[in-house]
C-alpha cells in the first residue's frame, strides 16, 4: 500500500509541473506586463524603468523567467499583493481554512444524501422511489449554483428570516453561541454546494450499484442465506463505490468552481472570493498564487481518491 501511494505521488508530480507550465505560459502569452503602470507614469524616467526591468529580469528568455518563478514559488516566496500590500501566502492562509471547511462539509452532506438514495433507487430500479429520486436528481444538477443560491436567500433569509444571508467573519459572541452562529451562517452555502454535488453523485451511485447487483457473487452471497441488508452493505456497496470514487475525483475541479460561485453569492471570505476580488482589481500575484493553490488542491484530491481507490480495491494497489 505504501509503495502504491508512493507511485501515485510520483505520477502527481509531473501533473503539478505541467499545471505550473500552463499557468506560466498563459501569463507569458498575455499582452501587457506588471510595469505597464510605470511605463505610462510620466514621473518615472525611462532609465529607471529600464533598470527596474533589468533588476526583475523581465527581458530574460522565457524559460529562465519560468525557472526563477518556479524556484521562488517552491521556496515559499510568493510575492506580495499589489492591493493590500500583504504577503500573498499570508493572505491565502487566512482564507483557505474557510473554503476547505465549506467544501469538506458540503461533500460530506452530498455523500450522506447520495449514497443511501442512490443505493435504494438501484435496489428497486424503475420503482416509484427510483423515478422520483432520478427526476429530482436531474433537476438538481440542471440548476446552476448561482440560481439555487439566490432562491435559497430569497426563501430562507428574506421570506422566512431563518438564516443571515451575508457571511460574517467578525462574530462577537463566544463559547457555544460562537459555534452556533458560525454554523447557522454556513448552512446555506454548504447546502447549496452539497445538494448540487449530491444530485450528480446520486446518479453515479445508482448506475454503479445497478452494474454490480446483477453479478454472480451477489447471487452467491444471497444463496448463502445472508440477509438482504448484509448483501447490500457489505458486498454490493463496497464494490459499487470503486467507480464512484473516480467519478467524484473527476468532479473536483467543478466542485471548486461551485465553491467560488457560492462564496461570491453568500460573501463567504474564502479563497474563491479572494480570487474574484483580485481579478476585479488587477492583482496579478494574488491571481497567480490562488490559481496555483487551487490546482494543487485538485491534484491533492485526485491523489486522495487514488488512495481510497487502492484501499477499496486491493487488486489495484498490488498491481
Amino acid at each position, binding site marked *: 500500500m505504501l509503495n502504491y501511494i508512493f507511485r501515485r505521488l510520483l505520477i502527481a508530480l509531473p*501533473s503539478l509541473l*505541467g*499545471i505550473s507550465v*500552463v*499557468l506560466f505560459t*498563459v*501569463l507569458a502569452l*498575455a*499582452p*501587457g506586463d506588471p510595469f505597464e503602470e510605470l511605463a505610462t507614469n510620466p514621473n518615472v524616467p525611462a532609465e529607471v524603468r529600464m533598470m527596474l526591468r533589468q533588476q526583475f529580469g523581465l527581458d530574460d528568455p522565457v524559460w529562465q523567467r519560468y525557472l526563477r518563478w518556479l524556484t521562488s514559488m517552491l521556496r515559499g516566496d510568493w510575492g506580495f499583493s499589489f492591493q493590500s500590500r500583504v504577503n500573498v501566502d499570508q493572505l491565502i492562509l487566512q482564507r483557505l481554512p474557510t473554503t476547505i471547511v465549506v467544501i469538506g462539509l458540503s461533500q460530506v452532506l452530498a455523500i450522506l444524501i447520495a449514497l443511501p438514495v442512490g443505493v435504494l433507487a438501484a435496489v428497486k430500479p424503475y420503482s416509484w422511489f427510483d423515478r422520483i429520486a432520478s*427526476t429530482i436528481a*436531474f*433537476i438538481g*444538477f*440542471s*440548476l*446552476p449554483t*448561482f*440560481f439555487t443560491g*439566490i*432562491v435559497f*436567500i*430569497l426563501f430562507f433569509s*428574506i421570506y422566512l428570516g431563518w438564516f443571515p444571508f451575508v457571511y460574517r467573519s467578525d462574530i462577537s459572541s463566544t463559547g457555544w453561541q460562537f459555534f452556533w452562529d458560525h454554523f447557522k451562517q454556513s448552512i446555506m452555502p454548504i447546502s447549496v454546494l452539497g445538494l448540487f454535488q449530491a444530485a450528480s453523485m446520486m446518479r453515479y451511485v445508482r448506475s454503479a450499484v445497478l452494474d454490480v447487483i446483477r453479478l454472480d457473487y451477489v447471487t452467491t452471497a444471497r444463496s448463502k442465506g445472508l440477509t438482504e441488508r448484509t448483501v447490500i452493505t457489505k458486498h454490493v456497496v463496497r464494490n459499487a463505490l470503486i467507480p464512484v470514487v473516480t467519478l467524484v475525483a*473527476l468532479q*473536483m*475541479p*467543478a466542485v*471548486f*468552481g461551485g465553491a*467560488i*460561485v457560492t462564496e*461570491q*453569492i453568500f460573501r463567504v471570505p474564502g479563497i474563491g472570493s479572494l*480570487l*474574484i476580488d483580485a*481579478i*476585479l482589481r*488587477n492583482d496579478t500575484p494574488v*491571481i*497567480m498564487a*490562488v*490559481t496555483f493553490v*487551487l*490546482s494543487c*488542491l*485538485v*491534484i491533492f484530491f*485526485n491523489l486522495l481518491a487514488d488512495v481510497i481507490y487502492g484501499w477499496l480495491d486491493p487488486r489495484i494497489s498490488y498491481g
Partner: protein
Amino acid sequence: MADVIADPDSAGAQRVSGGGMLGPGPEPQLGKVVASISPWQEAWRRFKRHRLAYWSLWVLGIMVLAVLLGPLVYKVGINDVDFQSRLAGPSLKHPMGTDDLGRDILARVLYGGRISLAVGMAAMLMAITVGVLIGAVAGMARGWVDAVLMWVTDLFLSLPQLPLLLLLIFLFREPLKQAFGLELGIFILIVTVIGGFRWMPVARLVRAQFFSLREKEFVEAARALGATTPRQVVRHILPNSLGPVIVAATIDVAAAIIAESTLSFLGLGFPPDIPTWGRILYDGRDYMDLAVHWAMFPGLAIFLTVLTINFIGDGLRDALDPRRVL
C-alpha cells in the same frame, strides 16, 4: 449527417444482420423492409419512448423559436428607459416586469437568450471539433502519440476550470476587445475558453470508440479494398462513433450555457450593456427584496434550457445506443 450514416457500408451491415435474424425468406422483400426504416428513423422511434426527452424537445424548441422570433413580434427596446415604472412587477404592459431603470425584462431576456444560446452552440462546436480531432488522432496513431495526447487530456481534466477561465478572461479581455470590438471580442474569448476546457471527455470517448471500431470487420474489409487511412476514418469509423459524440455534444451545450452565465454572474462575462441571462440575474440579485421577478425570470430561463437539454441528452443516449433494447 443522415446520408453519412446511411452510406452503403453501414446499410449493408444492417441488411446482413437483418437477414440473419429473419432467416430464409424472399430476398428483394427483405431489402425493402430494411430500406423503409433507416437507422435515424429507428433512433427517433426510440427517442419518442423517452417521454421527458420528447416533451423537453418541444419545450426547448418553443424557447428557441421565442428567442429567435420574439424580438420581431415583441417590439420593445432592450434599452428603453422608463422611470415612471421602475422595478414594476409583471403586468400586461411588461409581462416580466421592469428593472431599476424601467427597462422591460421580457425584451432583455429574449435578447439575452440569443447570446446565451449562441455561446452554447459555438462553444459546443469548438469542444466537439477539438475533442474529435484529438481523439481520432490518438485512436489512429496509438503508440507514443496516443500516450502524449492522453497525458495532455488528463492534465486538462485536472485543471481547475473556473479559476483558469477567470484568469484567461482577465488577461485577454482588453486586447481582444480592441482587436474585434466589444461584443465580438468577448464572444470569441468566452467561446474559445469554454470550448477549450470541454473537449477532454469527447476526446476520450472518440479514442475509445476508435480503438474498438478500427478492429471491426467492415473496417478491415475497407482496408483490404485499399481505402486510405483518412478514408477509413471519414467514411467508416467516424460515422459509426457519432452516437456518444452527439450525446456529449448535447450536454456540452448545457454546460457552456451554465459556464457563460456563471462568468456573467461573477461580473466577468459580457459587459453590463449586453444583457445575457447570467448578467440580468447578476444585476437583479441586489434587488431581490424589492423586485423578485428581475432575478427570477432569467434564472428560470437558464434552468429550463439546461434541464430540457439534459433530458434530451438522456433521451438521445437511450436512442443512439444500439445495444439497448427498448
